[in-house]
């Protein structure tokens, strides 16, 4: 599998997250002069987006992200977004965070699946970055950070071959395999069918570099065309118009990765309860994860790179609800199928003396050899902490 997939995965999922948060914050927008203390205003919205974007694109974090590494599980990655979403004054309940992550992953899965060429996933990423720049137009420092990431993307991916992009595409598709959460905006626009599968159209422009199917050409040994036959291929394709731009600024042509949420459209997710696809997902959560330790190390590194600005003073955390009412949010938390729950890994890097004693006790309980472990690695600490949750 490709070791260069994480930056693309992270940036695109992050982009989707920002689209959704922006839409929800706008929907709950109250004019400043009319707002109560606990209601969202335009100023708050901009601040939340600014905080999250500047955390996402911080130099240290990007450095960690772009290191060649494997993709970790959806659960591990969700922890990073959990932290990111809370990089501002905004607070999300578990149910809302779950819904947010569902929407993000299904959206990017759709975009990867429908990319005409494997290389087009880079155009999708650029679409997200272009939109992110739109959110932070007034902040030149953050804009510079995003442009810097753009440059890094071009440097990392600009020279890759079609074969290497195909491998990246396959790595991403494996990550999203068997996810069939039905998203109301997709169902309405008929890009997803009622069983949760995405609609794959057999019409429209072919990818750049592909010819319209339906022609057989035969040549003699000198290379001259001697015959041309047409055959019925079953689709309704037309030639590609033009190639999207991979420059810092330009027309990407591709619409995948642009913001599909508008102000007044509530976006719902439906958990597919009776789907037989759930069987494979249950297996995934029960089997012990042999990569548990590596995952925790990965998380520790990435989160270590995140510079979270702690709010100074007694500022209240503003809670954002991804559902239309608080009751709906509560209901969603109660009825979420077991197999679809993301167990949040709580990692706290405290130096608390009492906590260390507690950890030692927990570790003692998991001792399997007779010899006492003299010095446990940090990874073991975290693992033990997880098991104790």
């Amino acid at each position: 599998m490709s070791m260069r997939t994480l930056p693309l995965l992270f940036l695109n999922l992050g982009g989707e997250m920002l689209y959704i948060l922006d839409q929800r914050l706008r929907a709950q927008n109250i004019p400043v002069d009319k707002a109560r203390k606990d209601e969202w205003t335009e100023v708050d919205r901009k601040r939340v987006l600014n905080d999250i974007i500047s955390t996402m694109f911080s130099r240290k974090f990007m450095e960690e992200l772009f290191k060649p590494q494997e993709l970790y599980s959806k659960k591990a990655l969700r922890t990073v977004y959990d932290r990111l979403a809370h990089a501002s004054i905004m607070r999300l309940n578990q149910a809302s965070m779950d819904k947010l992550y569902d929407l993000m992953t299904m959206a990017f899965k759709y975009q990867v699946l429908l990319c005409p060429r494997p290389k087009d996933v880079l155009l999708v990423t650029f679409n997200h970055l272009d939109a992110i720049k739109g959110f932070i137009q007034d902040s030149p420092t953050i804009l510079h950070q995003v442009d810097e990431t753009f440059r890094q993307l071009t440097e990392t991916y600009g020279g890759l071959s079609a074969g290497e992009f195909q491998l990246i595409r396959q790595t991403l598709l494996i990550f999203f395999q068997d996810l069939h959460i039905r998203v109301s905006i997709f169902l309405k626009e008929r890009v997803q069918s009622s069983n949760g599968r995405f609609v794959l159209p057999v019409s429209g422009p072919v990818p750049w570099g592909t010819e319209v199917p339906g022609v057989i050409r035969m040549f003699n040994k000198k290379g001259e065309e001697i015959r041309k036959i047409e055959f019925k291929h079953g689709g309704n394709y037309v030639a590609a118009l033009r190639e999207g731009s991979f420059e810092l600024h330009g027309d990407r042509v591709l619409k995948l990765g642009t913001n599909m949420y508008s102000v007044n459209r509530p976006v719902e997710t439906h958990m597919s309860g009776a789907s037989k696809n759930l069987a494979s997902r249950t297996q995934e959560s029960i089997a012990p994860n042999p990569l548990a330790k590596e995952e925790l190390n990965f998380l520790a590194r990435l989160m270590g790179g995140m510079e979270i600005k702690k709010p100074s003073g007694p500022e209240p955390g503003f809670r954002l609800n991804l559902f239309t009412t608080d009751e709906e949010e509560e209901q969603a938390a109660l009825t979420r199928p077991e197999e679809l729950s993301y167990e949040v890994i709580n990692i706290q890097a405290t130096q608390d003396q009492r906590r260390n004693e507690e950890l030692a006790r927990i570790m003692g309980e998991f001792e399997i050899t007779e010899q006492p472990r003299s010095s446990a690695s940090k990874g073991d600490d975290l693992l033990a902490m997880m098991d104790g949750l």
Partner: protein
Amino acid sequence: KGIITCISCFQIHFLFSGSTPPINTFPHGPTISGALVLAAGTWSGQVLVFDIPAKGPNIVLSEELAGHQTPVTDIATESAQGQDCVVDMVTADDSGLLCVWRSGPEFTLLTCIPGFGVPCPSVQLWQGIIAAGYGNGQIRLYEATTGTLHVQINAHARAICALDLAPEMGKLLSAAEDTFVHIWKLSRSPESGYIEVEHCHGECVFDTQVCGARFCDPSGNSFAVTGYDLAEILRFSSV
């Protein structure tokens, strides 16, 4: 360099201690001596050839074929005995390059067919005809001994994932990420001897990005398909 862990009935499992994991293997038809030869493609582009003796468990690495610079994606073989053609093996890689080999005491590289910027995920060999499926949806048919391009089919709108042959009838199956499976009939013109092809059938596997496809019988009357996110294997038969 390579350690064979176990063999049972033509299924061979490998454990490589080096940094180049195998991409695929292909059991080769018997050579004149009666033993088997196995060719395995690697990530580095090398093709490793192993001798499998008629008796006993000792498999020996006999050759390391150089020809590819990018990961080997597929290998096709055909016994060349009793035919005019001397080609036994074709290997394909991620850059679209095809290498054409003749077996013997050692493998000889007969010719190379250059790529054109897209990977060649699948290749087949039938009666001196090389059929190659490419990442841009094209199928190209080449004369194996010379490497000359004789047919170019704009077959699919997305990358081809699999080609399969029904050798009895000369039927070729192509499956791609565009949800389509097409069946073709390969032949040679009686006058010129040139490769010809005819489209027989097209099947749309709705909303499924096909990942693999194979004929279920040697005359090509039925085929099976696997797809991304699909828990089932779909089987199609002609009535």
